[in-house]
């Protein structure tokens, strides 16, 4: 795995020193091995702090909305799932494709530090990565799948847009059914579902991290910040507003959400927000045929399309009673 990081650094240096791009959007080291941040590097010297490892979970495509509008070309290292988001942004004219040099980079699944803590390893000072396992603090070996983010267990695997690929090993695993939990919820009774979501959504503190990190939420001004929209709200002053915010947010990204899972990754209260988006994805697949947002920009989005024989709104099967 370390080989990949070396190749990443070499590629970044080569792109900068050759003048092919004038900056690189990637990840930089933090204080620990796990608190990696997205960063822009302007010189080969700055790349000393660059890093590419299992903690580089952040989806860089959203930063390209701003970065691609600036002077000069920016190189970016995108994971397979990030490329879907990027492609969707291209479709919606939110990025300037000519200004971006995309290196599709290998990803063997990214980590959740909280899952490390759950294994009982305590403080995580160092992580040596292997294709199927990780070695924590030089002593404890853990199955890689045990510490992966949920979204990495249901990986997209293929890059859909890139100028160049940086892949050494094929992606392993990640073939679980991403709709498993959606199905479980549908199988619950309506009362159980209501209780589940009430408990989950009541945790929401409306920090807007899910919205602000979301590569589909790219409005210059969100309806929830806009008093003219008649639904603006800053806090969940009533249990209704928790639902309103999340239903509308999911609806606004329905058919555009690439299921990158960033919303759930960043939620400070660990609300499984991706289950809302996946419900829409699974409904769209079921009602209107398989659709993967960001996969093919020529394809019409399911909510801007129709067929004369579409299912009637009163007729969907829905969850249990």
């Amino acid at each position, binding site marked *: 795995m370390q080989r990949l990081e070396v190749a990443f650094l070499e590629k970044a240096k080569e792109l900068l020193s050759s003048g092919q791009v004038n900056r690189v959007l990637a990840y930089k080291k933090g204080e620990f091995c796990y608190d990696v941040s997205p960063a822009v590097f302007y010189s080969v010297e700055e790349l000393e702090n660059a890093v590419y490892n299992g903690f580089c979970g952040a989806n860089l495509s959203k930063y390209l909305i701003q970065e691609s509008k600036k002077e000069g070309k920016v190189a970016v290292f995108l994971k397979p799932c990030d490329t879907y988001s990027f492609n969707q942004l291209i479709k*919606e004219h*939110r990025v300037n494709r000519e200004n971006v040099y995309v290196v599709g980079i290998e990803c063997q699944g990214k980590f959740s530090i909280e899952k490390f803590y759950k294994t009982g390893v305590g403080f995580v000072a160092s992580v040596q990565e292997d294709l199927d396992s990780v070695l924590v603090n030089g002593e404890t070996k853990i199955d890689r799948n045990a510490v992966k983010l949920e979204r990495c267990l249901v990986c997209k695997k293929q890059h859909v847009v890139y100028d160049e690929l940086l892949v050494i090993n094929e992606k392993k695993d990640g073939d679980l059914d991403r709709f498993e939990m959606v199905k479980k919820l549908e199988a619950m009774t309506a009362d159980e579902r209501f209780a589940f979501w009430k408990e989950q959504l009541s945790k929401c503190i409306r920090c807007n991290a899910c919205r602000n990190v979301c590569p589909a939420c790219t*409005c210059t001004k969100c*309806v929830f910040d*806009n008093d*003219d929209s008649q639904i603006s709200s800053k806090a969940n002053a009533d249990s209704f507003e928790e639902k309103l915010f999340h239903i509308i947010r999911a609806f606004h990204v329905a058919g555009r959400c690439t299921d990158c899972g960033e919303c759930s990754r960043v939620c400070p209260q660990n609300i499984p927000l991706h289950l809302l988006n996946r419900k829409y994805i699974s409904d769209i697949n079921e009602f209107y045929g398989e659709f993967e947002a960001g996969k093919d920009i020529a394809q019409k989005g399911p909510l*801007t*399309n129709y067929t004369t024989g579409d299912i009637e709104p009163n007729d969907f099967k829905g969850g249990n009673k």
Partner: protein
Amino acid sequence: MQRIGVFVCWCGSNISATVDVEKVSAVLALEPNVVISQNYQYMCSENGQALIRNSIKEHNLTGVVVCSCSPRMHEATFRRACESAGLNPYMLEVANIREQVSWIHKDIEEATEKAIILGRTAIAKLRLNTPLTAGESPVIKRALVIGGGIAGIQSALDIAEAGYEVDIVEKSPTIGGNMAKLDKTFPTLDCAACILTPKMVDCAQNEKIDILTFSEIESVKGFVGNFKVGIRKKARFVNEKLCTGCGVCTQKCPSKRGLNDFNMNLNTRPAIYIPFAQAIPNVAIIDPEQCLKLKNGKCGLCAMQCPTKAIDYTQQDEIVEREYGAIVVATGYKPISLENFNEYGYSTYKDVVTSLEFERIMNAAGPTSGHLERPSDHKQPKVITFIQCVGSRDTSGCGKPYCSKICCMYTAKHAMLVREKYPDTQVNIFYIDVRTPGKNYDEFYRRAVEQYGVNYIKGMVGKVYKEGDNLVVQGSDLINNEQLLIKSDMVVLAAAIEPDPSVRKIATLLTTSIDTNNFLTEAHAKLKPVESPTAGIFLSGVCQGPKDIPETVSQASACAAKVIGLLAKDKLKCNASTAGADEMLCTGCSLCENVCPYGAITYIDKEFRLGGGRTEVRRVASVNPAVCQGCGACTVTCPSGAMDLKGFSTKQIMAEVDAICKN
């Protein structure tokens, strides 16, 4: 602050019998912003309207709420009343307390309460109304007709007759279309050329009509009243202005192996040719695929022979740009390809022909000069079997799911013509149903059976195969419940028709829609059958759906009437309730463009000031108010709420929701 006047109508006793109108006007008088609240017996009467007009002036009203019958009934009346009193007509809201209250509720208390709530709701909406002005746009007094078949010709002639200029753009070298290929026409059996060619000549001679043949639509910009169309005039290598159509060149041309598409490829033609004797324009054209000069530079005989020096081997495609107020699409049809129907052996056996090919064989100007002979050995057939519904009403995916509508009639016509000219020929017709709705149509079909002794067989053919020199048609006879093997000399297939493939590109250019069978969709199946959903685009002939000649001509004239109605206006009054994007919120994501049924939304790169002398260029949506019909599809698809609809704004509808729920 709005100053609102409320006017409650009794509608005689229609409302006042179940709604306490006094109470309604008294309660609504207490609503914030309401400065006057009155009730009257008949608000829509002249006196009632005068009451509204006077109150507007007297109380300086900025808005009017009328609680009365359905707005679908008298909204226009009250708008006019407002306008005549100097108030913007869109500063009016109607609360429907008749159809939605007095007529359906019996309990006075309940009805009165509901009337008050509906009144409050109208007031809540009105508070947020803004004066609207329907925009105006000038109309360019010229029409474009795409397609020069009988539909296009008829539309063009009618429009020209009304005094407007028309251009016909035809992709082939002559106008006339499919009808020019036909022999006789049902149900009168008069010859197609005899009735079509005079119309073609009329077109050519009409000063108002400009015919651009061998030309195609390249680009379309603009909107109703103001289209800008780029037309590609393809190189024909003959100067149209100089050529007199004398035909010397066509006789001298040494390359004579090109297939004659006018004769359905049943014979050949020279590399330089005039499509047919009555072609309009009667001008030669060079097929560059066949011309020796154009292929390898050796020849040039035609140029040498041409008395007017009209031949120009260097001619290039030319793009002309013209402006139109209205566009008629009359792109017509073609028979479907029969390659999916191996069972009939069309591609295998020369003597299995399509009906359109049969037309040419029967046509006096056709490849056989009108002698009935079969293609393989030019012998006169003694038994001819016709098969109907070849590829029509087919949901298996090989053919078309719809009925092609014309086949029953022309097959009867063919049968009759054969029996008339060659009485000793046996004619069999396999049919599923014989469909003859139309004036004198069923009589025509019955004549084929009763007078001409045509053998109609209810059943379908499973296979056509060859036995010796003859074809054998294997089919079912469902009436006698037997399977037939009919030895035939010739088999004629009534192939389904489909829209000309060029329509796809044209529909895209015109941003109008086509259905799953590539027929253009009309704005309303019953009430707007010749208008497309896109304003200013009209549909003529088979491009909209299968039709025979009488129907096509009627529709073409209807289409022309619509065009004339449009061109007669100097200015177009646009719909006032249009969508518009808040540019500060718009992200230019294109979602709205995707759902607009009218193509009213485009995107522009616009510079915005950021403060501190900095600017940024952003892509934002721009709605053309002349095209927008105000459905609001865009407003909901827009996640940022940048898109809103005047007259039905998000705020207004939310205010109505609030008012209804408040009790």
